[in-house]
Protein backbone atom coordinates (compact mmCIF):
# COMPACT_ATOMS: atom_id res chain seq x y z
CA UNK A 1 0.00 0.00 0.00
CA UNK A 2 1.38 3.37 -0.94
CA UNK A 3 2.10 5.46 2.11
CA UNK A 4 0.63 8.95 1.81
CA UNK A 5 2.46 12.07 2.84
CA UNK A 6 1.16 13.28 6.19
CA UNK A 7 0.90 16.82 7.46
CA UNK A 8 3.88 18.87 8.57
CA UNK A 9 4.49 18.73 12.31
CA UNK A 10 3.02 22.07 13.34
CA UNK A 11 -0.05 21.65 11.13
CA UNK A 12 -0.54 18.11 12.39
CA UNK A 13 -0.58 19.17 16.03
CA UNK A 14 -2.86 22.15 15.40
CA UNK A 15 -5.34 20.06 13.38
CA UNK A 16 -5.24 17.42 16.10
CA UNK A 17 -6.12 20.02 18.67
CA UNK A 18 -8.92 21.42 16.51
CA UNK A 19 -10.31 17.90 16.10
CA UNK A 20 -10.08 17.17 19.82
CA UNK A 21 -11.70 20.42 20.92
CA UNK A 22 -14.54 20.40 18.38
CA UNK A 23 -15.04 16.71 19.05
CA UNK A 24 -15.34 17.02 22.80
CA UNK A 25 -17.50 20.15 22.69
CA UNK A 26 -20.09 18.82 20.25
CA UNK A 27 -20.05 15.14 21.06
CA UNK A 28 -22.79 15.11 23.72
CA UNK A 29 -25.20 16.82 21.36
CA UNK A 30 -24.00 14.94 18.30
CA UNK A 31 -24.58 11.57 19.95
CA UNK A 32 -28.18 12.50 20.75
CA UNK A 33 -28.65 13.80 17.20
CA UNK A 34 -27.42 10.59 15.55
CA UNK A 35 -29.12 8.24 18.00
CA UNK A 36 -32.50 9.96 17.72
CA UNK A 37 -31.99 10.49 14.02
CA UNK A 38 -31.47 6.79 13.42
CA UNK A 39 -34.88 6.05 14.93
CA UNK A 40 -36.50 9.09 13.29
CA UNK A 41 -35.76 7.54 9.89
CA UNK A 42 -38.63 5.21 10.70
CA UNK A 43 -41.13 7.89 11.77
CA UNK A 44 -43.94 6.74 9.47
CA UNK A 45 -43.28 3.08 10.13
CA UNK A 46 -43.75 3.59 13.90
CA UNK A 47 -47.13 5.34 13.69
CA UNK A 48 -49.30 2.25 13.52
CA UNK A 49 -47.48 0.71 16.49
CA UNK A 50 -47.85 3.81 18.65
CA UNK A 51 -51.47 4.59 17.74
CA UNK A 52 -53.96 1.69 18.06
CA UNK A 53 -56.56 3.75 16.17
CA UNK A 54 -54.47 3.29 13.04
CA UNK A 55 -54.79 -0.46 13.21
CA UNK A 56 -57.49 -0.71 10.57
CA UNK A 57 -57.17 -2.73 7.38
CA UNK A 58 -55.58 -0.80 4.55
CA UNK A 59 -57.52 -0.12 1.39
CA UNK A 60 -56.82 2.08 -1.59
CA UNK A 61 -60.45 2.15 -2.62
CA UNK A 62 -61.84 5.34 -1.13
CA UNK A 63 -64.61 7.65 -2.26
CA UNK A 64 -62.85 11.00 -1.91
CA UNK A 65 -65.76 13.18 -3.00
CA UNK A 66 -68.06 11.49 -0.51
CA UNK A 67 -65.48 12.07 2.21
CA UNK A 68 -65.32 15.78 1.41
CA UNK A 69 -69.10 16.11 1.33
CA UNK A 70 -69.39 14.35 4.69
CA UNK A 71 -66.98 16.80 6.29
CA UNK A 72 -68.77 19.66 4.55
CA UNK A 73 -72.14 18.59 6.04
CA UNK A 74 -70.68 18.67 9.53
CA UNK A 75 -68.43 21.68 9.28
CA UNK A 76 -69.48 23.89 6.36
CA UNK A 77 -66.09 23.93 4.65
CA UNK A 78 -64.92 27.27 3.29
CA UNK A 79 -63.94 26.17 -0.21
CA UNK A 80 -62.19 29.46 -0.82
CA UNK A 81 -59.44 28.02 1.38
CA UNK A 82 -57.28 24.95 0.77
CA UNK A 83 -58.80 21.56 1.44
CA UNK A 84 -56.23 18.83 2.10
CA UNK A 85 -56.98 15.14 1.93
CA UNK A 86 -54.36 12.71 3.22
CA UNK A 87 -54.91 9.40 1.50
CA UNK A 88 -54.58 6.10 3.33
CA UNK A 89 -51.11 4.61 3.34
CA UNK A 90 -49.88 1.24 4.57
CA UNK A 91 -48.45 2.96 7.64
CA UNK A 92 -51.47 5.11 8.37
CA UNK A 93 -54.61 3.61 6.82
CA UNK A 94 -56.94 6.38 7.99
CA UNK A 95 -58.29 8.94 5.57
CA UNK A 96 -57.81 12.47 6.84
CA UNK A 97 -59.43 15.69 5.70
CA UNK A 98 -58.09 19.09 6.72
CA UNK A 99 -59.97 22.26 5.90
CA UNK A 100 -61.13 25.63 7.16
CA UNK A 101 -64.70 25.51 8.38
CA UNK A 102 -66.93 25.83 11.43
CA UNK A 103 -66.83 23.68 14.49
CA UNK A 104 -70.38 22.41 15.14
CA UNK A 105 -70.26 23.39 18.80
CA UNK A 106 -69.99 27.15 18.40
CA UNK A 107 -70.39 27.93 14.67
CA UNK A 108 -67.32 30.14 14.68
CA UNK A 109 -66.06 30.49 11.13
CA UNK A 110 -62.46 30.16 10.07
CA UNK A 111 -61.54 27.24 12.31
CA UNK A 112 -59.05 24.61 11.24
CA UNK A 113 -60.94 21.34 10.96
CA UNK A 114 -59.19 17.95 11.02
CA UNK A 115 -61.28 14.83 10.52
CA UNK A 116 -60.00 11.27 10.44
CA UNK A 117 -62.14 8.54 8.90
CA UNK A 118 -61.98 4.80 8.44
CA UNK A 119 -61.24 4.47 4.71
CA UNK A 120 -63.91 1.99 3.67
CA UNK A 121 -66.86 3.06 5.81
CA UNK A 122 -65.90 6.75 6.05
CA UNK A 123 -66.97 6.53 9.66
CA UNK A 124 -65.40 9.26 11.71
CA UNK A 125 -62.62 8.27 14.10
CA UNK A 126 -61.77 10.57 16.95
CA UNK A 127 -58.33 11.83 15.97
CA UNK A 128 -55.90 10.19 18.33
CA UNK A 129 -53.26 12.50 16.91
CA UNK A 130 -53.33 14.50 20.09
CA UNK A 131 -52.97 11.52 22.34
CA UNK A 132 -49.98 9.50 21.16
CA UNK A 133 -46.32 10.23 20.84
CA UNK A 134 -43.24 8.12 20.29
CA UNK A 135 -42.15 8.96 16.78
CA UNK A 136 -42.86 12.66 17.29
CA UNK A 137 -40.84 12.83 20.52
CA UNK A 138 -37.85 11.11 18.94
CA UNK A 139 -38.09 13.25 15.82
CA UNK A 140 -38.16 16.47 17.87
CA UNK A 141 -35.35 15.27 20.10
CA UNK A 142 -33.25 14.81 16.96
CA UNK A 143 -33.03 18.58 16.43
CA UNK A 144 -33.60 19.61 20.06
CA UNK A 145 -37.04 21.00 19.31
CA UNK A 146 -37.85 20.65 22.99
CA UNK A 147 -35.70 23.78 23.43
CA UNK A 148 -37.89 26.65 22.21
CA UNK A 149 -36.59 28.70 19.24
CA UNK A 150 -32.89 27.87 19.73
CA UNK A 151 -33.08 24.10 19.52
CA UNK A 152 -32.81 23.55 15.78
CA UNK A 153 -30.23 26.35 15.46
CA UNK A 154 -28.07 24.62 18.06
CA UNK A 155 -28.46 21.37 16.17
CA UNK A 156 -27.44 23.18 12.99
CA UNK A 157 -24.27 24.53 14.59
CA UNK A 158 -23.43 21.11 15.98
CA UNK A 159 -23.74 19.81 12.43
CA UNK A 160 -21.47 22.55 11.07
CA UNK A 161 -18.78 21.85 13.65
CA UNK A 162 -19.22 18.16 13.00
CA UNK A 163 -18.09 18.98 9.44
CA UNK A 164 -15.02 20.69 10.88
CA UNK A 165 -14.33 17.68 13.08
CA UNK A 166 -14.62 15.38 10.05
CA UNK A 167 -12.21 17.41 7.91
CA UNK A 168 -9.67 17.95 10.69
CA UNK A 169 -9.86 14.30 11.71
CA UNK A 170 -9.33 13.11 8.13
CA UNK A 171 -6.34 15.43 7.74
CA UNK A 172 -4.79 14.12 10.95
CA UNK A 173 -5.32 10.54 9.82
CA UNK A 174 -4.31 11.21 6.21
CA UNK A 175 -0.88 9.57 6.19
CA UNK A 176 -2.40 6.30 7.45
CA UNK A 177 -5.70 6.38 5.60
CA UNK A 178 -4.71 3.69 3.07
CA UNK A 179 -2.23 1.65 5.09
CA UNK A 180 -4.47 1.36 8.12
CA UNK A 181 -7.76 0.86 6.33
CA UNK A 182 -8.33 -2.59 7.86
CA UNK A 183 -6.56 -2.02 11.16
CA UNK A 184 -8.60 -3.89 13.72
CA UNK A 185 -6.52 -5.18 16.62
CA UNK A 186 -7.63 -7.75 19.12
CA UNK A 187 -5.03 -7.22 21.80
CA UNK A 188 -2.81 -4.52 23.14
CA UNK A 189 -3.38 -1.20 24.77
CA UNK A 190 -6.94 0.14 24.97
CA UNK A 191 -5.81 3.44 23.48
CA UNK A 192 -4.72 1.65 20.31
CA UNK A 193 -7.91 -0.38 20.11
CA UNK A 194 -10.16 2.66 20.44
CA UNK A 195 -8.01 4.66 18.01
CA UNK A 196 -8.08 2.00 15.34
CA UNK A 197 -11.83 1.47 15.59
CA UNK A 198 -12.39 5.24 15.60
CA UNK A 199 -10.31 5.82 12.49
CA UNK A 200 -11.39 2.78 10.50
CA UNK A 201 -15.10 3.35 11.06
CA UNK A 202 -14.53 7.06 10.53
CA UNK A 203 -13.03 6.46 7.09
CA UNK A 204 -15.72 3.94 6.12
CA UNK A 205 -18.48 6.33 7.17
CA UNK A 206 -16.85 9.38 5.58
CA UNK A 207 -19.32 10.02 2.70
CA UNK A 208 -22.27 9.32 4.98
CA UNK A 209 -21.01 11.67 7.69
CA UNK A 210 -20.09 14.49 5.31
CA UNK A 211 -23.55 14.27 3.73
CA UNK A 212 -25.28 14.49 7.09
CA UNK A 213 -23.00 17.26 8.36
CA UNK A 214 -23.86 19.46 5.38
CA UNK A 215 -27.57 18.58 5.09
CA UNK A 216 -27.91 18.92 8.85
CA UNK A 217 -26.31 22.35 8.81
CA UNK A 218 -28.65 23.30 5.95
CA UNK A 219 -31.78 22.25 7.81
CA UNK A 220 -30.75 23.88 11.09
CA UNK A 221 -29.07 27.05 9.86
CA UNK A 222 -30.97 27.91 6.70
CA UNK A 223 -32.15 31.19 8.23
CA UNK A 224 -28.60 32.17 9.03
CA UNK A 225 -27.37 31.45 5.50
CA UNK A 226 -30.29 33.44 4.08
CA UNK A 227 -29.54 36.63 6.07
CA UNK A 228 -26.90 38.01 3.66
CA UNK A 229 -29.18 37.25 0.72
CA UNK A 230 -32.00 39.26 2.24
CA UNK A 231 -29.70 41.98 3.58
CA UNK A 232 -28.27 42.63 0.12
CA UNK A 233 -31.65 44.00 -0.88
CA UNK A 234 -31.14 42.75 -4.41
CA UNK A 235 -33.56 39.83 -4.30
CA UNK A 236 -37.26 39.42 -3.66
CA UNK A 237 -37.96 36.53 -1.26
CA UNK A 238 -41.33 35.92 -2.96
CA UNK A 239 -39.64 35.51 -6.35
CA UNK A 240 -37.18 33.03 -4.92
CA UNK A 241 -39.93 31.08 -3.22
CA UNK A 242 -41.85 30.98 -6.49
CA UNK A 243 -38.88 29.30 -8.19
CA UNK A 244 -38.94 26.60 -5.57
CA UNK A 245 -42.70 26.33 -5.08
CA UNK A 246 -44.49 27.47 -8.23
CA UNK A 247 -47.87 26.76 -6.65
CA UNK A 248 -47.42 29.88 -4.49
CA UNK A 249 -47.95 31.97 -7.60
CA UNK A 250 -51.41 30.55 -8.27
CA UNK A 251 -53.93 33.36 -8.29
CA UNK A 252 -57.53 32.36 -7.98
CA UNK A 253 -60.49 34.54 -8.75
CA UNK A 254 -62.47 35.24 -5.58
CA UNK A 255 -65.51 35.98 -7.67
CA UNK A 256 -65.32 32.70 -9.61
CA UNK A 257 -68.69 31.18 -10.47
CA UNK A 258 -69.77 27.71 -9.37
CA UNK A 259 -69.30 25.20 -12.14
CA UNK A 260 -69.21 21.46 -12.65
CA UNK A 261 -65.88 19.70 -12.85
CA UNK A 262 -64.49 16.23 -12.75
CA UNK A 263 -64.77 14.44 -9.42
CA UNK A 264 -61.70 13.98 -7.23
CA UNK A 265 -61.99 10.22 -7.76
CA UNK A 266 -61.81 10.65 -11.56
CA UNK A 267 -58.86 13.01 -11.27
CA UNK A 268 -57.12 10.50 -9.00
CA UNK A 269 -57.42 7.91 -11.77
CA UNK A 270 -55.93 10.40 -14.23
CA UNK A 271 -52.90 11.25 -12.12
CA UNK A 272 -52.32 7.58 -11.31
CA UNK A 273 -52.42 6.87 -15.04
CA UNK A 274 -49.87 9.58 -15.86
CA UNK A 275 -47.56 8.71 -12.95
CA UNK A 276 -47.92 4.98 -12.42
CA UNK A 277 -44.78 4.26 -10.37
CA UNK A 278 -45.26 6.69 -7.58
CA UNK A 279 -47.22 6.87 -4.32
CA UNK A 280 -49.94 9.51 -4.46
CA UNK A 281 -50.10 10.79 -0.92
CA UNK A 282 -52.33 13.80 -0.73
CA UNK A 283 -54.48 16.05 -2.95
CA UNK A 284 -54.74 19.71 -2.09
CA UNK A 285 -57.96 21.13 -3.51
CA UNK A 286 -58.45 24.79 -4.33
CA UNK A 287 -61.83 26.33 -5.13
CA UNK A 288 -63.77 23.07 -5.11
CA UNK A 289 -67.00 23.50 -6.97
CA UNK A 290 -65.92 26.61 -8.87
CA UNK A 291 -64.95 27.16 -12.48
CA UNK A 292 -61.22 27.64 -11.70
CA UNK A 293 -60.98 24.68 -9.33
CA UNK A 294 -57.49 23.17 -9.09
CA UNK A 295 -56.00 20.16 -7.42
CA UNK A 296 -52.34 19.65 -6.50
CA UNK A 297 -51.37 16.00 -6.10
CA UNK A 298 -48.45 15.49 -3.73
CA UNK A 299 -46.53 12.35 -4.60
CA UNK A 300 -43.42 10.51 -3.43
CA UNK A 301 -41.78 7.44 -4.84
CA UNK A 302 -39.04 6.75 -2.26
CA UNK A 303 -36.83 5.51 -5.10
CA UNK A 304 -34.79 8.32 -6.63
CA UNK A 305 -33.54 11.55 -5.11
CA UNK A 306 -35.82 13.60 -7.32
CA UNK A 307 -38.85 11.36 -6.95
CA UNK A 308 -41.12 13.76 -5.11
CA UNK A 309 -43.87 15.47 -7.07
CA UNK A 310 -46.48 18.23 -6.88
CA UNK A 311 -48.72 17.66 -9.85
CA UNK A 312 -51.07 20.51 -10.53
CA UNK A 313 -54.29 19.84 -12.46
CA UNK A 314 -57.26 21.92 -13.40
CA UNK A 315 -60.29 20.07 -12.07
CA UNK A 316 -62.41 21.02 -15.09
CA UNK A 317 -60.65 18.59 -17.42
CA UNK A 318 -57.72 17.00 -15.57
CA UNK A 319 -55.10 18.83 -17.63
CA UNK A 320 -51.73 18.96 -15.94
CA UNK A 321 -50.55 22.54 -15.54
CA UNK A 322 -46.78 22.28 -15.81
CA UNK A 323 -46.25 25.91 -14.95
CA UNK A 324 -47.41 25.31 -11.39
CA UNK A 325 -46.11 21.76 -11.03
CA UNK A 326 -42.96 20.20 -9.64
CA UNK A 327 -42.63 16.97 -11.58
CA UNK A 328 -40.82 13.79 -10.53
CA UNK A 329 -37.40 13.51 -12.20
CA UNK A 330 -38.08 16.63 -14.19
CA UNK A 331 -37.20 19.49 -11.92
CA UNK A 332 -35.26 22.69 -12.17
CA UNK A 333 -31.82 22.91 -10.51
CA UNK A 334 -33.30 24.88 -7.62
CA UNK A 335 -36.02 22.31 -6.99
CA UNK A 336 -33.53 19.47 -7.28
CA UNK A 337 -31.16 21.03 -4.73
CA UNK A 338 -34.03 21.21 -2.28
CA UNK A 339 -35.35 17.72 -3.02
CA UNK A 340 -31.95 16.01 -3.06
CA UNK A 341 -31.06 17.51 0.31
CA UNK A 342 -34.29 16.46 1.95
CA UNK A 343 -34.38 13.01 0.33
CA UNK A 344 -30.79 12.35 1.39
CA UNK A 345 -31.31 13.56 4.93
CA UNK A 346 -34.57 11.71 5.56
CA UNK A 347 -33.41 8.59 3.73
CA UNK A 348 -36.43 8.87 1.45
CA UNK A 349 -34.80 7.18 -1.51
CA UNK A 350 -33.63 3.71 -2.41
CA UNK A 351 -36.42 2.07 -0.45
CA UNK A 352 -35.89 0.23 2.81
CA UNK A 353 -32.36 -0.85 1.95
CA UNK A 354 -31.21 2.74 2.36
CA UNK A 355 -33.19 3.29 5.54
CA UNK A 356 -31.69 0.22 7.19
CA UNK A 357 -28.21 1.11 5.91
CA UNK A 358 -28.54 4.65 7.27
CA UNK A 359 -29.75 3.30 10.62
CA UNK A 360 -26.71 1.03 10.89
CA UNK A 361 -24.32 3.79 9.79
CA UNK A 362 -25.88 6.20 12.31
CA UNK A 363 -25.27 3.72 15.09
CA UNK A 364 -21.70 3.27 13.86
CA UNK A 365 -21.32 7.06 13.99
CA UNK A 366 -22.54 7.02 17.59
CA UNK A 367 -19.85 4.44 18.24
CA UNK A 368 -17.23 6.63 16.56
CA UNK A 369 -18.25 9.44 18.90
CA UNK A 370 -17.96 7.36 22.06
CA UNK A 371 -14.64 5.85 21.01
CA UNK A 372 -13.36 9.39 20.49
CA UNK A 373 -14.10 10.30 24.08
CA UNK A 374 -12.50 7.09 25.31
CA UNK A 375 -9.36 7.79 23.26
CA UNK A 376 -9.24 11.24 24.80
CA UNK A 377 -9.54 9.73 28.26
CA UNK A 378 -7.00 6.94 27.87
CA UNK A 379 -4.47 9.23 26.16
CA UNK A 380 -4.50 11.47 29.22
CA UNK A 381 -4.24 8.75 31.84
CA UNK A 382 -0.58 9.34 32.68
CA UNK A 383 1.84 11.22 34.90
CA UNK A 384 1.95 14.28 32.63
CA UNK A 385 -1.35 15.49 34.07
CA UNK A 386 -2.04 16.60 37.61
CA UNK A 387 -4.40 14.62 39.80
CA UNK A 388 -7.01 17.38 39.47
CA UNK A 389 -6.81 17.25 35.69
CA UNK A 390 -7.11 13.47 35.61
CA UNK A 391 -10.11 13.60 37.89
CA UNK A 392 -11.69 16.09 35.49
CA UNK A 393 -11.02 13.81 32.51
CA UNK A 394 -12.65 10.95 34.36
CA UNK A 395 -15.66 13.05 35.34
CA UNK A 396 -16.28 14.18 31.76
CA UNK A 397 -15.97 10.64 30.48
CA UNK A 398 -18.26 9.30 33.17
CA UNK A 399 -20.96 11.91 32.42
CA UNK A 400 -20.59 11.18 28.77
CA UNK A 401 -20.94 7.42 29.11
CA UNK A 402 -23.90 7.83 31.46
CA UNK A 403 -25.87 10.26 29.28
CA UNK A 404 -25.16 8.49 25.98
CA UNK A 405 -25.49 4.85 26.91
CA UNK A 406 -28.62 5.50 28.97
CA UNK A 407 -30.36 6.55 25.75
CA UNK A 408 -30.71 2.87 24.84
CA UNK A 409 -32.96 1.86 27.78
CA UNK A 410 -34.56 5.33 27.69
CA UNK A 411 -35.84 4.88 24.14
CA UNK A 412 -37.24 1.46 25.01
CA UNK A 413 -38.88 3.13 28.00
CA UNK A 414 -40.54 5.65 25.69
CA UNK A 415 -42.13 2.83 23.72
CA UNK A 416 -43.21 1.16 26.97
CA UNK A 417 -44.66 4.42 28.34
CA UNK A 418 -46.71 4.82 25.18
CA UNK A 419 -48.46 1.57 26.08
CA UNK A 420 -48.74 1.71 29.87
CA UNK A 421 -50.36 5.15 30.06
CA UNK A 422 -54.10 4.53 29.45
CA UNK A 423 -55.57 6.13 26.32
CA UNK A 424 -58.21 8.15 28.14
CA UNK A 425 -55.83 10.03 30.41
CA UNK A 426 -56.06 13.79 29.72
CA UNK A 427 -52.83 15.38 28.49
CA UNK A 428 -51.50 11.94 27.76
CA UNK A 429 -48.68 13.17 25.51
CA UNK A 430 -47.17 15.27 28.29
CA UNK A 431 -47.29 12.29 30.61
CA UNK A 432 -45.57 9.94 28.14
CA UNK A 433 -42.89 12.56 27.44
CA UNK A 434 -42.36 13.10 31.17
CA UNK A 435 -41.89 9.38 31.77
CA UNK A 436 -39.36 9.31 28.93
CA UNK A 437 -37.30 12.34 29.95
CA UNK A 438 -37.48 11.66 33.67
CA UNK A 439 -36.61 8.03 33.00
CA UNK A 440 -33.64 9.05 30.87
CA UNK A 441 -32.50 11.40 33.63
CA UNK A 442 -32.71 8.71 36.29
CA UNK A 443 -30.99 6.15 34.08
CA UNK A 444 -28.20 8.65 33.43
CA UNK A 445 -27.89 9.58 37.12
CA UNK A 446 -27.45 5.91 37.91
CA UNK A 447 -24.42 5.91 35.62
CA UNK A 448 -22.79 8.74 37.53
CA UNK A 449 -22.27 6.37 40.45
CA UNK A 450 -20.39 3.87 38.33
CA UNK A 451 -16.69 4.51 37.96
CA UNK A 452 -15.76 1.75 35.54
CA UNK A 453 -16.50 2.38 31.89
CA UNK A 454 -16.80 -1.27 30.94
CA UNK A 455 -19.35 -1.60 33.73
CA UNK A 456 -21.27 1.30 32.20
CA UNK A 457 -21.24 -0.66 28.99
CA UNK A 458 -22.39 -3.91 30.50
CA UNK A 459 -25.00 -2.44 32.83
CA UNK A 460 -26.67 -0.27 30.21
CA UNK A 461 -26.66 -3.15 27.73
CA UNK A 462 -28.40 -5.26 30.35
CA UNK A 463 -30.94 -2.57 31.29
CA UNK A 464 -31.55 -1.81 27.64
CA UNK A 465 -31.98 -5.45 26.85
CA UNK A 466 -34.55 -5.98 29.58
CA UNK A 467 -36.50 -2.85 28.65
CA UNK A 468 -36.38 -3.86 24.97
CA UNK A 469 -37.96 -7.21 25.67
CA UNK A 470 -40.68 -5.49 27.70
CA UNK A 471 -41.77 -3.40 24.68
CA UNK A 472 -43.63 -6.11 22.72
CA UNK A 473 -45.01 -7.49 25.99
CA UNK A 474 -46.51 -4.09 26.89
CA UNK A 475 -47.91 -3.75 23.39
CA UNK A 476 -49.60 -7.12 23.67
CA UNK A 477 -50.97 -6.49 27.14
CA UNK A 478 -52.25 -3.00 26.37
CA UNK A 479 -53.70 -3.52 22.91
CA UNK A 480 -54.16 -7.27 22.60
CA UNK A 481 -52.18 -7.24 19.34
CA UNK A 482 -49.52 -9.79 20.20
CA UNK A 483 -46.67 -9.93 17.71
CA UNK A 484 -47.39 -13.47 16.55
CA UNK A 485 -50.83 -12.30 15.40
CA UNK A 486 -49.88 -9.00 13.83
CA UNK A 487 -47.37 -10.62 11.47
CA UNK A 488 -50.12 -11.10 8.90
CA UNK A 489 -52.69 -8.46 9.79
CA UNK A 490 -50.56 -5.44 10.66
CA UNK A 491 -46.98 -6.11 9.53
CA UNK A 492 -45.65 -2.70 10.60
CA UNK A 493 -46.75 -3.30 14.20
CA UNK A 494 -45.05 -6.69 13.92
CA UNK A 495 -41.79 -5.20 12.63
CA UNK A 496 -41.53 -2.75 15.53
CA UNK A 497 -42.15 -5.53 18.08
CA UNK A 498 -39.68 -7.84 16.35
CA UNK A 499 -37.05 -5.08 16.24
CA UNK A 500 -37.24 -4.72 20.02
CA UNK A 501 -37.18 -8.48 20.55
CA UNK A 502 -34.02 -8.88 18.45
CA UNK A 503 -32.42 -5.84 20.05
CA UNK A 504 -33.23 -7.14 23.51
CA UNK A 505 -31.81 -10.59 22.86
CA UNK A 506 -28.63 -9.25 21.26
CA UNK A 507 -28.14 -6.67 24.02
CA UNK A 508 -28.58 -9.22 26.81
CA UNK A 509 -26.22 -11.65 25.09
CA UNK A 510 -23.65 -8.88 24.64
CA UNK A 511 -23.97 -7.77 28.26
CA UNK A 512 -23.05 -11.25 29.41
CA UNK A 513 -20.12 -11.48 27.01
CA UNK A 514 -18.70 -8.02 27.70
CA UNK A 515 -15.28 -8.13 29.30
CA UNK A 516 -15.44 -6.04 32.42
CA UNK A 517 -12.13 -4.61 33.57
CA UNK A 518 -11.04 -4.94 37.15
CA UNK A 519 -11.05 -1.99 39.48
CA UNK A 520 -12.03 1.57 38.88
CA UNK A 521 -11.32 4.14 36.18
CA UNK A 522 -11.37 6.85 38.83
CA UNK A 523 -7.87 8.30 39.23
CA UNK A 524 -6.22 7.58 42.57
CA UNK A 525 -3.87 10.21 43.93
CA UNK A 526 -0.77 8.15 44.48
CA UNK A 527 -0.66 5.78 41.56
CA UNK A 528 -1.54 7.46 38.27
CA UNK A 529 -0.18 4.90 35.85
CA UNK A 530 -2.39 1.89 36.52
CA UNK A 531 -0.65 0.04 33.70
CA UNK A 532 -2.29 -3.15 34.82
CA UNK A 533 -5.76 -1.75 33.99
CA UNK A 534 -4.75 -0.70 30.54
CA UNK A 535 -3.70 -4.10 29.26
CA UNK A 536 -6.44 -6.10 27.58
CA UNK A 537 -4.81 -9.38 28.50
CA UNK A 538 -5.16 -8.73 32.20
CA UNK A 539 -8.83 -7.85 32.12
CA UNK A 540 -11.11 -10.11 34.06
CA UNK A 541 -13.79 -12.05 32.25
CA UNK A 542 -17.54 -11.94 32.44
CA UNK A 543 -19.74 -11.48 35.39
CA UNK A 544 -17.68 -9.04 37.38
Amino acid at each position, binding site marked *: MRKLKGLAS*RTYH*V*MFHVHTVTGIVISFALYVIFYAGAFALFYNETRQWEDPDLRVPYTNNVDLDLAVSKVDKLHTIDFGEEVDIILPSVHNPLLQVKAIGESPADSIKGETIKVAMAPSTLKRIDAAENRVTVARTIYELHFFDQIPYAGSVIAGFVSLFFFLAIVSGTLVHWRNVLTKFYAFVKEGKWKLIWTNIHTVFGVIGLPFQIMYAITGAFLGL*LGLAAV*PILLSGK*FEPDDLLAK*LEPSTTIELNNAAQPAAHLSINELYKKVAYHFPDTKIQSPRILHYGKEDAMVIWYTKDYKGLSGRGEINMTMKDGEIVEEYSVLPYNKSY*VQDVWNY*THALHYGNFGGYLIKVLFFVLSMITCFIIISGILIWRTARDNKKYTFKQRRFHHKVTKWYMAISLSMFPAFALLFIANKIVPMDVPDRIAMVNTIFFLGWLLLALYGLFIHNYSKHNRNYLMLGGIFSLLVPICNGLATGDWFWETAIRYPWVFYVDVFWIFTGIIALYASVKVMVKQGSDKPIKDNPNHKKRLQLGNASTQGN
Partner: protein
Amino acid sequence: MPANPKYLSSGWKRFSKVMAAVLGGYAASTTIFVAVAVHSSKPENALFSTTYGSFLLWGIFMVMVYWVNKAWISWSVILLITVLSVLSIAIAP
Protein backbone atom coordinates in the same frame (compact mmCIF):
# COMPACT_ATOMS: atom_id res chain seq x y z
CA MET B 1 -1.23 11.57 21.08
CA PRO B 2 -2.57 14.80 22.58
CA ALA B 3 -1.39 17.79 20.63
CA ASN B 4 1.93 19.16 21.74
CA PRO B 5 1.10 22.48 23.42
CA LYS B 6 4.20 24.17 22.01
CA TYR B 7 2.48 24.40 18.63
CA LEU B 8 -0.77 25.79 19.98
CA SER B 9 -1.49 29.49 20.22
CA SER B 10 -2.81 31.19 23.34
CA GLY B 11 -4.53 34.34 24.50
CA TRP B 12 -5.37 36.92 21.86
CA LYS B 13 -4.09 34.86 18.97
CA ARG B 14 -6.33 31.97 19.92
CA PHE B 15 -9.36 34.24 20.28
CA SER B 16 -8.57 35.90 16.99
CA LYS B 17 -8.39 32.56 15.18
CA VAL B 18 -11.71 31.38 16.63
CA MET B 19 -13.33 34.63 15.50
CA ALA B 20 -11.77 34.33 12.07
CA ALA B 21 -12.95 30.78 11.70
CA VAL B 22 -16.52 31.21 12.92
CA LEU B 23 -17.49 34.80 12.12
CA GLY B 24 -15.03 35.48 9.33
CA GLY B 25 -15.76 32.16 7.69
CA TYR B 26 -19.50 32.89 7.80
CA ALA B 27 -19.09 36.33 6.26
CA ALA B 28 -16.74 35.21 3.51
CA SER B 29 -18.63 32.06 2.53
CA THR B 30 -22.08 33.64 2.38
CA THR B 31 -21.10 36.88 0.64
CA ILE B 32 -19.28 35.01 -2.13
CA PHE B 33 -22.50 33.27 -3.07
CA VAL B 34 -24.53 36.48 -3.05
CA ALA B 35 -21.85 38.19 -5.19
CA VAL B 36 -21.96 35.37 -7.74
CA ALA B 37 -25.77 35.48 -7.72
CA VAL B 38 -25.95 39.21 -8.33
CA HIS B 39 -23.88 38.83 -11.49
CA SER B 40 -25.58 35.75 -12.94
CA SER B 41 -28.42 35.59 -15.40
CA LYS B 42 -30.19 33.01 -13.23
CA PRO B 43 -29.49 34.22 -9.70
CA GLU B 44 -31.74 31.65 -8.08
CA ASN B 45 -29.27 28.90 -9.01
CA ALA B 46 -26.42 30.56 -7.12
CA LEU B 47 -28.70 31.47 -4.23
CA PHE B 48 -30.04 27.99 -3.73
CA SER B 49 -26.53 26.58 -4.02
CA THR B 50 -25.87 28.59 -0.87
CA THR B 51 -28.01 26.13 1.04
CA TYR B 52 -25.31 23.48 0.86
CA GLY B 53 -22.36 25.39 -0.59
CA SER B 54 -22.06 28.05 2.08
CA PHE B 55 -21.62 25.42 4.78
CA LEU B 56 -19.06 23.53 2.72
CA LEU B 57 -17.11 26.75 2.12
CA TRP B 58 -17.48 27.81 5.74
CA GLY B 59 -15.95 24.54 6.85
CA ILE B 60 -13.11 24.94 4.38
CA PHE B 61 -12.42 28.47 5.63
CA MET B 62 -12.34 27.16 9.20
CA VAL B 63 -9.74 24.57 8.22
CA MET B 64 -7.74 27.23 6.38
CA VAL B 65 -7.64 29.48 9.46
CA TYR B 66 -6.01 26.69 11.44
CA TRP B 67 -3.78 25.46 8.65
CA VAL B 68 -2.17 28.87 8.27
CA ASN B 69 0.17 29.72 11.10
CA LYS B 70 -0.28 33.45 11.49
CA ALA B 71 -3.73 34.78 12.33
CA TRP B 72 -3.30 38.00 10.33
CA ILE B 73 -2.82 36.09 7.08
CA SER B 74 -6.10 34.20 7.40
CA TRP B 75 -7.88 37.37 8.53
CA SER B 76 -6.53 39.15 5.46
CA VAL B 77 -7.74 36.46 3.09
CA ILE B 78 -11.17 36.36 4.70
CA LEU B 79 -11.55 40.13 4.84
CA LEU B 80 -10.34 40.47 1.26
CA ILE B 81 -12.91 37.97 0.01
CA THR B 82 -15.70 39.56 2.06
CA VAL B 83 -14.88 43.12 1.02
CA LEU B 84 -14.52 42.19 -2.66
CA SER B 85 -17.84 40.33 -2.55
CA VAL B 86 -19.68 43.16 -0.81
CA LEU B 87 -18.24 45.71 -3.25
CA SER B 88 -19.27 43.66 -6.26
CA ILE B 89 -22.76 43.32 -4.80
CA ALA B 90 -22.94 47.07 -4.26
CA ILE B 91 -21.82 48.06 -7.74
CA ALA B 92 -24.02 45.53 -9.53
CA PRO B 93 -26.92 47.01 -11.55
